[in-house]
């Protein structure tokens, strides 16, 4: 069995990517994700990989795009303001069906915002990660171990569906150390063959073209329709969530990432007081685990969404349950991590019928 070791979230994430077969990394320093780049710069040259510090976030995401188009398993990493710059590349990657992994270790916004943990990029990640009709696969880990586990999953799904994937973490998960076990892949992970990649045809096939431009409107619609079929399949097959004591819960807290673990403490405390609380934690934010939540709404009386933002996921919760139950919100903006006590107080109020 692999050893359980103490590792910083950002570094564990980087090592997990390497174990998942990613040896091409393009980045740019920004707090609080810089350790990802620093770790890669130490490890990758030793194993024949590429660590490249780009001149900008824009360049970094386009290097990722080039590497992905050439068939490599590659990633870039940044934090909120840097992700805004990467949205150009993300849109083009989505439009040209190029796989790749983008890490967002969120900090406060808008603008420079702050450098403390935040969850204010939910809308950006799930609704508009770039211009155009597109989605990317978004994972939200809530512990360092889960971050490690989801990295490989994200790469695999991204390759399989040819859709860019994102790990939406936050400064808390990136900076904290927790015990983790990282599965070591002996001799490197075997990656799927990519016949569509542009890496030289060797006169063995017709030339491959990686492109997002369709000047005939009907062609564009046909391509997007086909892509949305893949989105649909992802939604059916690959949504993930954690349900904790939701079966008989009256009040169900919905929270993801770092906030998810804090909400869990509040749910436990509520149960100790005899209040039937439960936690629903989406692990994929896109596709959002709508059906699971809808099922819970059959028995739950009220929902409480907790986020480190002014309330962004709360809309998706309402949509998932067709607004059939009241959905309340509690949160703080970047840097002010909700405490279990605050969440508990809110649960108790809701359980008492107050809104």
């Amino acid at each position, binding site marked *: 069995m692999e050893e359980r070791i*103490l590792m910083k979230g950002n570094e564990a994430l980087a090592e997990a990517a390497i174990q998942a077969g990613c040896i091409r990394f393009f980045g740019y320093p920004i707090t609080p994700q810089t350790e990802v780049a620093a770790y890669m710069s130490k490890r990758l040259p030793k194993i024949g990989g590429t660590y490249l510090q780009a001149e900008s976030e824009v360049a970094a995401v386009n290097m990722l795009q080039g590497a992905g188009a050439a068939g490599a398993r590659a990633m870039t990493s940044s934090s909120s303001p840097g992700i805004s710059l990467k949205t150009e590349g993300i849109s083009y990657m989505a439009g040209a069906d190029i796989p790749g992994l983008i890490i967002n270790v969120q900090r406060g916004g808008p603008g420079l915002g702050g450098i403390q943990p935040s969850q204010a990029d939910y809308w950006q990640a799930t609704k508009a990660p770039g211009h155009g009709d597109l989605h990317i696969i978004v994972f939200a880990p809530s512990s360092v171990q889960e971050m490690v586990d989801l990295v490989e999953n994200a790469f695999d799904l991204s390759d399989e569906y040819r859709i860019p994937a994102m790990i939406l973490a936050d400064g808390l998960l990136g900076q904290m*150390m927790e*015990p983790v076990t990282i599965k070591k892949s002996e001799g490197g992970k075997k990656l799927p063959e990519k016949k569509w990649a542009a890496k030289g045809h060797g006169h063995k096939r017709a030339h491959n073209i990686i492109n997002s431009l369709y000047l005939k409107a009907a062609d564009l619609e046909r391509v997007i329709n086909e892509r949305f079929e893949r989105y649909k399949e992802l939604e059916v097959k690959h949504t993930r969530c954690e349900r904790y004591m939701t079966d008989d819960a009256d009040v169900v807290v919905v929270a993801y990432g770092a906030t998810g673990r804090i909400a869990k403490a509040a749910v436990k405390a509520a149960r100790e007081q005899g209040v039937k609380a439960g936690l629903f934690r989406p692990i994929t934010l896109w596709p959002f685990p709508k059906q699971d939540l809808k099922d819970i709404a059959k028995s739950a009386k009220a929902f409480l969404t907790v986020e480190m933002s002014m309330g962004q996921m709360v809309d998706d919760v309402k949509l998932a349950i067709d607004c059939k139950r009241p959905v309340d919100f509690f949160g703080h903006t970047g840097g002010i991590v909700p405490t279990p006590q605050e969440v508990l107080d809110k649960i108790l109020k809701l359980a008492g019928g107050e809104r």
Partner: protein
Amino acid sequence: MGDLNSILAGFGGQGILFMGKVIATAGLLEGKEVSWLPSYGPEMRGGTANCSVCISSGDICSPLVTSPNVLIAMNLPSFTKFIDTVVPGGTVIVDSTLISKKVERNDVNVCYIPASALAEQSGLKGLANIILIGKLLELTGFCEYLSIKKTIEKVVPPKKQHLIQKNMEAIDIGYNYKG
């Protein structure tokens, strides 16, 4: 003791984050759940440094400690910032070489230990942080004494193996100090 929810605080360069890593690693070696969360950003650059360290037999929900049951303070600004956040019945360890102020609360257990001076006198300059861990161990038993030795062996980098002995001496000085 039960769960440890600690805040360790001082200036950058005093080894605050390393102190946290030692405590967390000791918990890890005993098979417990642990978390370590540093303060980060501009305040690291020569300013104050602090970190939250938790050890628990169950899941750790919030790695950010806002109501610590242990506070170790290595400078006055940190002492002032965190002293009122300690839960009643909690433990406060003060490096009295660096902080002359006394705790005005009487619902917490306070230990004043001149860790920096003790380190200096014993030829262990720079190991005041480890002396404070020794004291924490004696006061709370947050881990087994033997686990600390294993921890030190694990966290001291390979290039600095000669420092293992000195670190253990520092643990003992703190452990045995009677103020």
